[in-house]
């Protein structure tokens, strides 16, 4: 992947104001809280975390589909926070998005050719026949047939609909493609077909991917770098292989240990994780994970931890980041039979 930074988020936050009032003040939901990351040219940067951690909101905020409450976003080095009207529309052309639910991501009343063509029309690119040619080639590029051009979405399977969504996003030749859980709604065998397609497109067109998912095995396969999110904050960020080999943050460790490996002989040594993700309406004080963390100390509940670079380009947001990394065993995946279900 190249060195040039395509997209950079600096201290981006997105707060929602709940309708319900609590002791006089309107309750604030910090969906995204002071998030910073970079996406380099032709790199796949992923955001992973459980539902409610703010990964989808982050994706939409850096694209300015949602207006950020604080912070800056640089696209190709230029701040896009104050772009309006035509210049904002120009930005839309360079940042495109694909969505999770194939069944509601395509307008049921339009033929798929029209759906793929429309972005070109919005940006007045070429004339009608040129637009049709480009749409047909995009259709073929994602593995569909030319004679399906006039078909309607309800005649396609989930996997095919996802391919149409990808064709629609790519027709504008964006610099960066934000993928919001693109394969979560698909069956395993279809999932790998779509992942291969995304990988092919990234290699051939040099587009960068901001990939959002809760599925750790998909993240491991497709990402170059990973940011783990918890209650609106990136608690750990580093290169993919290292994250899976030596996770630094306690939450990452717990998250990885909870992922069931698809082979009975590899049992993940479970990190007990009590309770559930607290409600974002009133997050715990200090480090948001302290009430569920096995290593928590009074300091954790007092102060929000700083982001430390424990290794080159490996950031962890935890007071005891360095000590925990040393302690973290070489590999938490032990090669002994999974005793849990054995009879």
């Amino acid at each position, binding site marked *: 992947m190249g060195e040039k930074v395509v997209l950079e988020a600096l201290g981006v936050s997105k707060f929602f104001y709940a309708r319900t009032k609590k002791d006089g003040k309107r309750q604030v939901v910090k969906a995204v809280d002071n998030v910073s990351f970079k996406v380099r040219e032709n790199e796949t940067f992923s955001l992973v975390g459980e539902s409610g951690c703010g990964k989808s909101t982050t994706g939409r905020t850096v694209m300015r589909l949602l207006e950020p409450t604080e912070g800056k976003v640089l696209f190709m080095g230029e701040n896009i926070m104050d772009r309006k009207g035509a210049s904002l529309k120009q930005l*839309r052309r360079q940042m495109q998005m694909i969505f999770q639910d194939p069944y*509601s*991501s395509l*307008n049921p009343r339009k033929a798929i050719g029209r759906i793929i063509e429309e972005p070109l029309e919005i940006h007045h690119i070429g004339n009608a026949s040129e637009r049709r040619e480009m749409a*047909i080639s995009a259709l073929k590029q994602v593995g569909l047939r030319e004679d399906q051009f*006039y078909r309607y979405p309800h005649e396609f399977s989930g996997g095919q609909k996802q391919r149409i969504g990808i064709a629609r996003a790519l027709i504008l030749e964006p610099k960066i493609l934000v993928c919001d859980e693109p394969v979560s709604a698909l069956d395993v065998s279809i999932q790998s077909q779509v992942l291969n397609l995304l990988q092919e497109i990234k290699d051939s067109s040099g587009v960068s991917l901001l990939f959002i998912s809760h599925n750790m095995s998909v993240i491991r396969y497709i990402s170059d770098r990973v940011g783990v999110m918890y209650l609106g904050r990136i608690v750990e960020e580093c290169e993919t292989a290292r994250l899976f080999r030596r996770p630094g943050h306690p939450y990452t460790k717990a998250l990885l240990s909870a992922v069931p490996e698809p082979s009975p002989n590899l049992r993940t040594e479970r990190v007990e994780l009590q309770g559930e993700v607290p409600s974002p309406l009133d997050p715990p004080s200090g480090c948001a994970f302290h009430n569920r963390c096995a290593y928590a100390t009074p300091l954790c509940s007092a102060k929000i931890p700083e982001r430390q670079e424990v290794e080159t380009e490996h950031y962890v947001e935890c007071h005891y980041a360095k000590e925990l990394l040393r302690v973290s065993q070489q590999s938490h995946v032990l090669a002994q039979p999974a005793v849990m279900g054995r009879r």
Partner: protein
Amino acid sequence: MSEQVLKEARREQRKVMLGAILGQRVALAGFFIMVLIALLAILAPVLAPQGPYDINPLDRLLPPSPKHWFGTDSLGRDLLARTLYGLRISLTVGGETALLSTVIGLALGLLSGYFRAVDNVVMRICEGMMAIPPMLLAIALVAALGSSSENVVLSMCVAYMPMVARVARASTLSVKEQTFIEAIKSSGAGWPRVLFGHIAPNIMSPVIVQATYIFASAIIIEAAMSFLGAGVPPPDPSLGNVLYDAKSVIFKAWWTTVLPGLVMVLTVLGLNILGDGVRDAMDPSGK
């Protein structure tokens, strides 16, 4: 080259869609009844032995006969002529009401479903209007504006427009949440393209269903208003007037009520069946 393939694909696609439409038996039944009713209305001059206004007191209240299929009313006017011309008036009044209230209601519903600011204002007004029983509102307006068929249409529109607005708003709110709306926005589309290009086509079915129900009940309400003397002014033969005249002679000439009544019921039935058919057609679980 690919031109030929595309043309072939387009023709094939149209065939599939036509097949789907023909498959909806209920909607088709309703459609055929309406075609029949429309023909009756259009061919009124041909079918009716004489004009609806020609009075000849000599043959008052004749029973149905080869000369007068529906017999004659208390002023000796041919009942078939009055019914068919009345059908024409009722259809136009009902049709105009349905069309006008649907167009306005659709626009209001779309805007209030999409823009929250518009929503609060428009919906409060609509709720206020809907609180008034439709017929009473229409009668009060006709009494105020004077009774003419235009005023009848106008006052019925005021009563029905909020109903369409409410259906349109509810559908807009649900379509607005769909992912393909967020997708087209992320491609840089402005609100006009989003609202009229993408949301409107997806809410047409429930609105059309509502329009057919309004068409049907507009015919009933118009007839009821004429019955109360606030509808299309006599001597124009709206179905309501025909039935109003028939009321006074119901003991002597029952057919003056039953026969025009049948034609009216058939019309309204046809519209309601069409409405049910379209609703079942677009309801996905119906397949």
